[in-house]
Structure formats: structure tokens, C-alpha cells
């Protein structure tokens, strides 16, 4: 009698234990760290600086000396017109190329690269080593040349500078008010002319061997509500900036980093501390800030570890790091390498 009820109790306990174990296993299978919840937007493994891998699935000649590559991979994130990617070349060189394909085509990117014989070797490597079927590594797209809404868009491009503008034209569509002035050395050297032909007289093609340098005087009549976009060689961009009237925003995209301008002196207001420090030409913003606030965190002093990232309240920043994303650049800077673009910055320090 007593033995019978003990056995029944034992069986019930064993059954309950088995059920609990099974329930736990099901939960852990669905949620590996159950009972912890998950962060809604995962951070680890989704770094905006992670390395993506893709395959060259098509390679064509877009013009004399210009190769047009189509890269494909399920890992490629979405992008917006004006974006560029860092291509990590097999030799270890890292080069930036604008995406010139269609953002709606998920899983593929297109880039066009002009061979620069006198360059630093990046474009030669793309031309010589990236055949169809080659594996490439790249970083997720960044956009330093985004298309902003405006009543009228004026594009001025030189040569291979056409690449970031192509997706912009597609995004604006046939209804929008835009014009494109496209300069180059000769028709044979200018990529994507057939594709641009269908836009009719909104596109003006100016090959230097036929028509000389493009005339930019029309820019002076750009009215309010116009946005000017320019991508091309440095002298062209300087001329466009010069020709556009005050009050008309000019957006520039540089292929090559602006010559590492020797640091100019500027002042830094540390808003929360209520002081202002002067950054001399030969020192970093970090050095100047640390004179006033010795506890300011920093570490590598070369722009790669990210410890000295600080919030910027006002003033354009000349970002010289290799770390921050576009989003981070809109509100923060790395004090160890970056400087003021003008002569004053306000930090939330």
C-alpha cells in the first residue's frame, strides 16, 4: 500500500522532470540564451565595417580604358544613389568606387573603373586581376554624396565621375527637372554615352577634343531651389564651386582624398565644460582638448580604435579617420585625427 503510493509519487516526479527538461530544451532551441531577451537591432556581426565577399559575374569595356564590373553575392546590403564601396584588392590596397548600377537590383553591385597608368596602382590591379569569376572583398556602401530633394538638379561631371550620377538620374525619373553636363577627353573615352542618349537634350556631352573645356557660365543663373552636383577631376570641381552663385548648394564627390591639407589652426568650444581651446596647426584636436580636460579618453591616436569619438554640436568636420560610418560622421568625430573644416567647432564635452 505505502510502497504503491511511493512508486506513484516517484513516477509523477520523474514525469514532471522530463516535461520540464523538454520544455527547457525547446525554449533554448528557439532562444539560445533563454531567458535573456535579444537586442532588437543586433550589433555584433553586423558591423558597418565588416568585410563582404562577392564574385565578379560580368566584365565589359564601358569605354577606352574603362572596365565595367558586375559583382554578385547574397551578402550585399541595400544602398542609395551616390554611395561608394571600399574595394579590398588582393594586394592589400583599398580603393573607393561609386556604385553605378540599380539600387533595386538586390544582390548585385556595379562599378566602373578607369585605368590610371600614373596612379597608385589600384585601378591597374582592378583591370589586370579582376576577371570574370574572380572573388573580391569589399565593405558595405557608404554615401558621402547623397541625392537631396530640390526643385531642380544640375549635374556637372567629368569622365569617370559619371558613375555616382547614373543611379541619381534613374532615381529622379523622367518627370523631374534636371540637366547633366558631361565632359571628357574624347567620346571614345567617355563611358555610358549610349545609356545617356535616351535622356535627349537634358544631357550635354562635351568631349574636349571636339568642343574644348565645358562652359560653366550657365551655373551663374541657377536660381534658389537648385542643387548642383559635381563629380570629376579637382580643377573641374573647383571651377563649379567658383561658378555657382552663393546660396545654391554645391555637392562634391572626390575620388581621391583631398591632399592631406596641413592642419590649419582652429578653435574648439567645449560646450559642457564651458571653455574654448585653440588647436595649433601642428597639433591634433585631441592634444588641445586634453590640455583642458586631461581625462579625455583616447588610445591609438591614429584614427582606428575609435576611443576618442566625441559628439559635435556645430561646425563642419574634416573627417580624416578610417573608422566612422556616415551616420556617425553626421554627429561625431575622432579627435585624434580629424579637424575643423572651417575655423571653429563646438563639441559636447
Amino acid at each position: 500500500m505505502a510502497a504503491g503510493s511511493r512508486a506513484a509519487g516517484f513516477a509523477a516526479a520523474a514525469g514532471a522532470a522530463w516535461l520540464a527538461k523538454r520544455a527547457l530544451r525547446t525554449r533554448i532551441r528557439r532562444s539560445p540564451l533563454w531567458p535573456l531577451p535579444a537586442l532588437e537591432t543586433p550589433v555584433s556581426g553586423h558591423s558597418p565595417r565588416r568585410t563582404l565577399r562577392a564574385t565578379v559575374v560580368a566584365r565589359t569595356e564601358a569605354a577606352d580604358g574603362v572596365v565595367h564590373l558586375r559583382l554578385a553575392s547574397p551578402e550585399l546590403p541595400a544602398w542609395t544613389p551616390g554611395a561608394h564601396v571600399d574595394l579590398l584588392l588582393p594586394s592589400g590596397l583599398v580603393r573607393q568606387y561609386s556604385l553605378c548600377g540599380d539600387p533595386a537590383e538586390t544582390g548585385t553591385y556595379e562599378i566602373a573603373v578607369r585605368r590610371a597608368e600614373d596612379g597608385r596602382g589600384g585601378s591597374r590591379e582592378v583591370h589586370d586581376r579582376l576577371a570574370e569569376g574572380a572573388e573580391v572583398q569589399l565593405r558595405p556602401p557608404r554615401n558621402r554624396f547623397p541625392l537631396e530633394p530640390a526643385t531642380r538638379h544640375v549635374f556637372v561631371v567629368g569622365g569617370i565621375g559619371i558613375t555616382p550620377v547614373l543611379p541619381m538620374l534613374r532615381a529622379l525619373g523622367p518627370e523631374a527637372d534636371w540637366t547633366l553636363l558631361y565632359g571628357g577627353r574624347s567620346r571614345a573615352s567617355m563611358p555610358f554615352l549610349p545609356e545617356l542618349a535616351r535622356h535627349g537634350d537634358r544631357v550635354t556631352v562635351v568631349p574636349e577634343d571636339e568642343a574644348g573645356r565645358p562652359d560653366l557660365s550657365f551655373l551663374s543663373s541657377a536660381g534658389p531651389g537648385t542643387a548642383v552636383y559635381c563629380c570629376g577631376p579637382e580643377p573641374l570641381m573647383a571651377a563649379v564651386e567658383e561658378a555657382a552663385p552663393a546660396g545654391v548648394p554645391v555637392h562634391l564627390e572626390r575620388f581621391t582624398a583631398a591632399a592631406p591639407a596641413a592642419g590649419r589652426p582652429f578653435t574648439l568650444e567645449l560646450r559642457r565644460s564651458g571653455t574654448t581651446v585653440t588647436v595649433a596647426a601642428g597639433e591634433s584636436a585631441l592634444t588641445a582638448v586634453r590640455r583642458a580636460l586631461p581625462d579625455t579618453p583616447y588610445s591609438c591616436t591614429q584614427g582606428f580604435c575609435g576611443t576618442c569619438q566625441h559628439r559635435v554640436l556645430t561646425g563642419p568636420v574634416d573627417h580624416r579617420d578610417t573608422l566612422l560610418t556616415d551616420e556617425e560622421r553626421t554627429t561625431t568625430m575622432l579627435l585624434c585625427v580629424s579637424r575643423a573644416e572651417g575655423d571653429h567647432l563646438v563639441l559636447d564635452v
Partner: protein
Amino acid sequence: MSNTQPAPVASERIELKARNVAFEWTDTPLHWLPGHPFATHTINVLHLLLPAGERWFVHVYKQALPLITDDRLREDVIGFIGQEAMHAAAHDDVLPHLRRQGLDPTPYTAQVDWMFEKLLGDRTLPPGRARRWWLLERIAMIAAIEHYTAFLGNWVLNADELDRRGADPVMLDLLRWHGAEEVEHRSVAFELFMHVDGSYRRRVRTWASAFTALVFLWQRGARFFMENDPTLTAGRASFGQFYRAGREGVLPSTPDMLRSIPRYLSRAYHPSQEGSTSQAAAYLAASPGANGRAR
């Protein structure tokens, strides 16, 4: 003579600097320790925990800097912060490689992200005592965790069995570069804790939470990898496998791990008493990843 004061070994101190590393994962196989998925995945748990964990270290230590009144210690903490930031980034880069091989770590890492960003984050505390208490508590937890990272760093620098079994050279370099920097800076977290607080009760309490959390995270992590590995049918993780792998020398041995517990809890403990800075420095001088030769 009393031996209840932490006794640092002066010769083990070295100037700390962050190294800008690069690793190329293209050729690293899923089971980078050939024929030993369990040991591979148990070590792989590091890639799940360290990106979020080391970002958290950096976040907490930035807040700790103003509490430091010793210039030499401040320099050490600054070097530590930079090294930890690079560790987080280097391990983070392994995660997309695992995903490419059919083992998406996101379900696990998103929960680790929650733990470090929310559970152990800043919380909305009033300035003053509560906020200071929570900062000191986290500084003490980091000291306890760093006892184990130094233990693991020292282990991996001496784990010759991994070489003998043909472990992938890039993965081994990542682990040994990281391990060597952990050995190099092993005293910083403990010295910071002793400098800002040093309470023995807090040391024991935070050790207990850190140790429990590490056992929980590791056990679940190994299990997660073994059950989701696309090349294994009915993969499982068990303590028995861990114990045997420790005896074989492909994972730290269980008795060694148990023996490290009373060492941290001893009142005379100082991290410089374990591990060798010169061995770490020698590895760092030769590491391909830390010297720009990974490509």
C-alpha cells in the same frame, strides 16, 4: 611578514599600445581544428561573447578614467581601452565568416548584445551614490573577467597541441595575438579595481556573478554551435567532452580551471604573478596579423 597584500611582479609591466591588426578569413574552414568540432566550437564561443563584451569594457572604462588619480595607471588604462576596442572589432569580423559557412550566430549574439547593452549598461541612475556604486560594481566584474581572459591567453600561447593537430594558422594567430595582449595587459583591470575601490567583499561578490555568467554563456554557446552546425547530425555539447578535450590539451584542463579560482580569491593575488609578459611580447613581435602580413 604578512602576505595578504597583492604583490605585483615589477618585471612583468610593459607599456601598452593598440595594434592595428588584419586577418584574412577566406581560407579558414568551419572546423578550424581538424576533426574536433567540439573544441573548435567551444573556442568559437569567444567570437560570440567578445565583440559585445569588449565594447562594454571600453564603455565602462571611459567612465572610469576620471576616477583615476595615478598617471601611470591612467596610461595603462588608455592602452587597455585601445587594445580591447581592437579585440572586439577583430572577433566581430569572424561572425560574417561563420554565417557564410551556414552557421548564423545572430540568434545568440543578439542576446549577448542585450546583456551587455541593457542588463549591464548604464541604466537610468541618479548621479551620485547609485551611479558610482554601479560603476564600481562593473569595474570589479571586469577585473574578474580579465582574470579568465589572462588565464585563457596564457593557455593559448602554450597550447602546442593545437599546432600539432594542424589548427588553421589564421585562427590560431587571432587567438594568440589576442591572448598575448591579454597577458600583456593582465594587471590593468585588477589594478584599476584596487585603485578605485579594492573592497574584498565586492571582489568576491563580482567574481561569483562573473564566473556564473561565464559558465552559463559558455555552456549555452557550445551547445548552440554544436546543435546548429550544418555539417553535424545530432551534434551535442556535454561536460564530458569538455573534460576529455582538456586532458587532450585542445581546451584548458578542468583541474587547471578549478585551481585558478582560489588564486583570484586569495588576498595576496596580483595578476602579474601568472603568465609571462616576455612570452607575450615575443609572440606579438612575430604575429602575422599584428604586423601587417596577413594578406
